[in-house]
């Protein structure tokens, strides 16, 4: 009551000052059922400790809480950990847990569960770099967990947020069964988050309900969340327009985004995707043929008109990317070679590299069409653009993801579009593409066969550098070197958008889009 009066007062003051403009911030209202579309279709499992990806992330972060959450400015905020401490040498990270937090069966969430969760994630989560330096977890008391590290590990902060570190109950998952295929991953889930599971019907929906025993007073606002599985993007768009669903996340089809932008009932935003950090790029196999030459790769970059892709193919929905770090990340630097279209330069570089134009042609290359939708037009464009500088490109299509993944994993390609996610810290999602120790280890490894000693050195150093300014400088140097040597020609940040009805208050904020708790979302009248 007191809070509301204060807000009213503030609102009327603001209204008075802004001379009639309707600015009064709505007071969150409790209750209601939010209907969203589940990004990425049916999740394999609902437990983010053993499965990554956006499909698991959306329901997973409602069911399970993590120690930290991130705001829009990439600043960690308390969540299940009410506070935390990093020792001066960076080798001890202490988490102080919320004291009244309980799992959905009423059992208190303790430091034992944190230790257990770290163990499970270390062993079963696909992103091994997140907790690799964590040697052990001490539990001096019920609400204090101390992570002991072998080296300083600045990536740990991001790895403790969003869907990356789900706190799971030891008394459920510690029963000796394989946590990866545990029956409680999909049914009778006992979570630590603001919502509990009502029903999971693969191919249909996940229904979540407010957890009454949630530790934060008055939260979550919503009574229920229905996450519907609608795989067809056109049908999803129509469902948004006629109000059947309130919100869709990870929408990345330019035509649909632009069409829905003109709908007055809907808000369309690309805020909130920096953590996921998805980037579209053109990968080049640097291990054979003409692409071994830096000059050839640079020439290709100069021959492609990035503006055409951004304006004509992406229809202005996507931000330009110049490096392998997402443009929204604080570690991103735009001060690298941008490779603006320059056919003369491209031709000159190719001549210098020893590939003169003979009968209108220099050499042949293949380009793969990725085994996921959305890159056909770009691929065709690159073929046309490179023919202008005498490179004859053959397009090779793949019927599905595994076929393409095999070609990439075996490095049996020349060029290919690809879409790779940062997953927060570079250590988690960026290093894998550039480390020479990770060459040719399956799809989304260093499939370019790129090896540069200085890059290896920088990435190793930055992984343990606790001083954020120094760390930023290291990553800037890394981005400059890679932009100079072009194992990858970066195109754009994937235009992932959140589209929501104007009835939705506090849509997902922070850096993890819908892979973050929706405890503060509410529905207006």
């Amino acid at each position: 009551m007191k809070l509301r009066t204060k807000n009213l007062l503030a609102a009327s003051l603001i209204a008075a000052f802004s001379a009639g403009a309707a600015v009064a911030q709505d007071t969150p209202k409790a209750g209601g059922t939010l209907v969203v579309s589940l990004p990425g279709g049916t999740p394999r499992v609902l437990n983010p400790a053993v499965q990554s990806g956006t499909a698991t992330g959306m329901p997973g972060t409602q069911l399970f809480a993590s120690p930290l959450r991130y705001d829009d400015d990439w600043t960690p905020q308390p969540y299940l950990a009410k506070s935390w401490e990093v020792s001066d040498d960076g080798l001890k990270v202490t988490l102080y847990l919320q004291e009244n937090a309980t799992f959905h069966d009423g059992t208190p969430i303790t430091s034992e569960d944190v230790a257990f969760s770290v163990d499970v994630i270390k062993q079963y989560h696909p992103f091994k770099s997140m907790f690799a330096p964590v040697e052990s977890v001490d539990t001096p008391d019920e609400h204090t967990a101390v992570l002991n590290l072998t080296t300083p590990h600045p990536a740990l902060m991001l790895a403790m947020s969003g869907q990356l570190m789900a706190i799971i109950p030891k008394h459920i998952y510690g029963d000796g069964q394989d946590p990866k295929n545990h029956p409680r991953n999909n049914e009778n889930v006992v979570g630590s988050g603001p919502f509990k599971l009502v029903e999971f019907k693969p191919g249909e929906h996940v229904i979540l309900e407010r957890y009454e025993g949630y530790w934060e007073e008055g939260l979550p606002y919503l009574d229920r969340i229905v996450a519907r599985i609608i795989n067809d993007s056109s049908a999803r768009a129509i469902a948004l327009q006629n109000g059947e669903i309130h919100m869709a996340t990870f929408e990345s089809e330019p035509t649909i985004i632009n069409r829905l932008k003109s709908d007055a009932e809907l808000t369309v935003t690309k805020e909130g995707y920096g953590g996921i950090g998805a980037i579209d790029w053109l990968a080049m196999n640097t291990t054979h043929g003409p692409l071994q030459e830096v000059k050839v790769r640079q020439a290709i970059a100069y021959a492609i008109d990035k503006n055409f892709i951004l304006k004509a193919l992406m229809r202005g929905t996507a931000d330009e990317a110049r490096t392998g770090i997402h443009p929204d990340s604080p570690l991103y630097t735009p001060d690298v070679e941008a490779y603006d279209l320059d056919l003369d330069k491209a031709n000159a570089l190719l001549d210098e590299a020893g590939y003169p134009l003979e009968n209108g042609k220099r050499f042949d290359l293949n380009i793969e069409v990725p085994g996921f939708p959305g890159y056909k037009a770009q691929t065709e464009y690159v073929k046309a653009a490179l023919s202008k500088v005498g490179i004859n490109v053959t397009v090779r299509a793949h019927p599905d993801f595994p076929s393409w993944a095999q070609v990439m994993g075996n490095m049996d390609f020349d060029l290919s579009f690809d879409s790779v996610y940062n997953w927060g810290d570079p250590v988690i999602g960026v290093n894998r593409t550039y480390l020479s120790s990770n060459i040719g280890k399956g799809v989304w490894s260093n499939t370019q066969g790129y090896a540069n000693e200085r890059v290896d050195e920088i990435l190793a150093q930055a992984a343990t550098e606790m001083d954020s300014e120094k760390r930023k400088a290291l990553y800037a140097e890394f981005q400059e070197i890679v932009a100079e040597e072009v194992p990858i020609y970066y195109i754009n940040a994937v235009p992932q958008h959140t589209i929501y009805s104007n009835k939705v208050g506090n849509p997902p904020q922070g850096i993890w889009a819908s892979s973050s708790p929706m405890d503060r979302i509410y529905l207006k009248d």
Partner: protein
Amino acid sequence: MNALRVTTTRIFYAVLLLLAVLVLNFTMMHLAPGDVADTIAQSMGGADEETMAQIRADYGLDKPFIVQLGSYLGRVIRFDLGYSFYYNQPVTSLILQRLPATLLLVFTAQLFAMIVGVVLGVISARRPNGILSHFVTFISLFGYSAPVFWTGILLLIAFSLKIQWFPVAGMRDVTLEGGFWVQTLDIIRHMVLPTITLGSIFLALYSRLSRASMMETLGSDYVRTAKAKGLTEREVVYKHALKNALSPVITLAGLQFSAVISGAVLVETVFAWPGLGTLAFQSILARDTPTILGILFFSALMVIVGNLLTDFVLRLVDPRLKGRA
């Protein structure tokens, strides 16, 4: 008894056929580059080699082909369709969960196509060169040749967006509260557009067939006799001619049994209908071999049982077929 022996032989062949379907498809799945470990890695945003190897070991994908095939067939013979790699669930329960929705949609669509198709066919047969007849031809050919996902989206734009009569996706509104009738009405509302979309493919077949068959019947001697007796046009058409003209239509309906899954895949995807079609589509994309084979097994079973039944019924009805293999 002779008929019994014939039936047993048929069942024996049916089982052989079923096994052949499984072996062939298992082999084809195996020959394609990549496997479910890749799609699982995709769903996780990438996985390191160790995790990939672990996934392959978990599902026995690292074993030689013959061993994998053998253990699969061994389980199928014991009526165990195995465990879905992708969905982490027993395949049988996964399929049984989805089967009712598909059967409901497919049978309603068939019924819709048959009734509307026959009515349109009869109308156009009576005045083969009239405007109405040309209109029916146009409509049915349009429905037959337009891709279903396109028809589906057009219907959605018209009747879910512009005129908001019907819901866009799914089979029911889970936020709706109410008793049996409210829920049933809700399912019916969700069914209208998918039914029309799926039915539109078959509509052409039924209307063309009944039109041709009706025209043939209307030209036959007994119809002329009936007309000569002084019966009204209406009585002649609906009482005498239609009954005889319907038999090829009913045969066609029997043959459509095999279209149960194939027609549903696209329609279910557009309307997010939680049936076998979407499951089949997703499983193929995910390279989830046990689920795909399970669905094939079920559909093959349905077709074989349907054929056996037709065969058996025909034998009972038509004395000329008795004892023939």
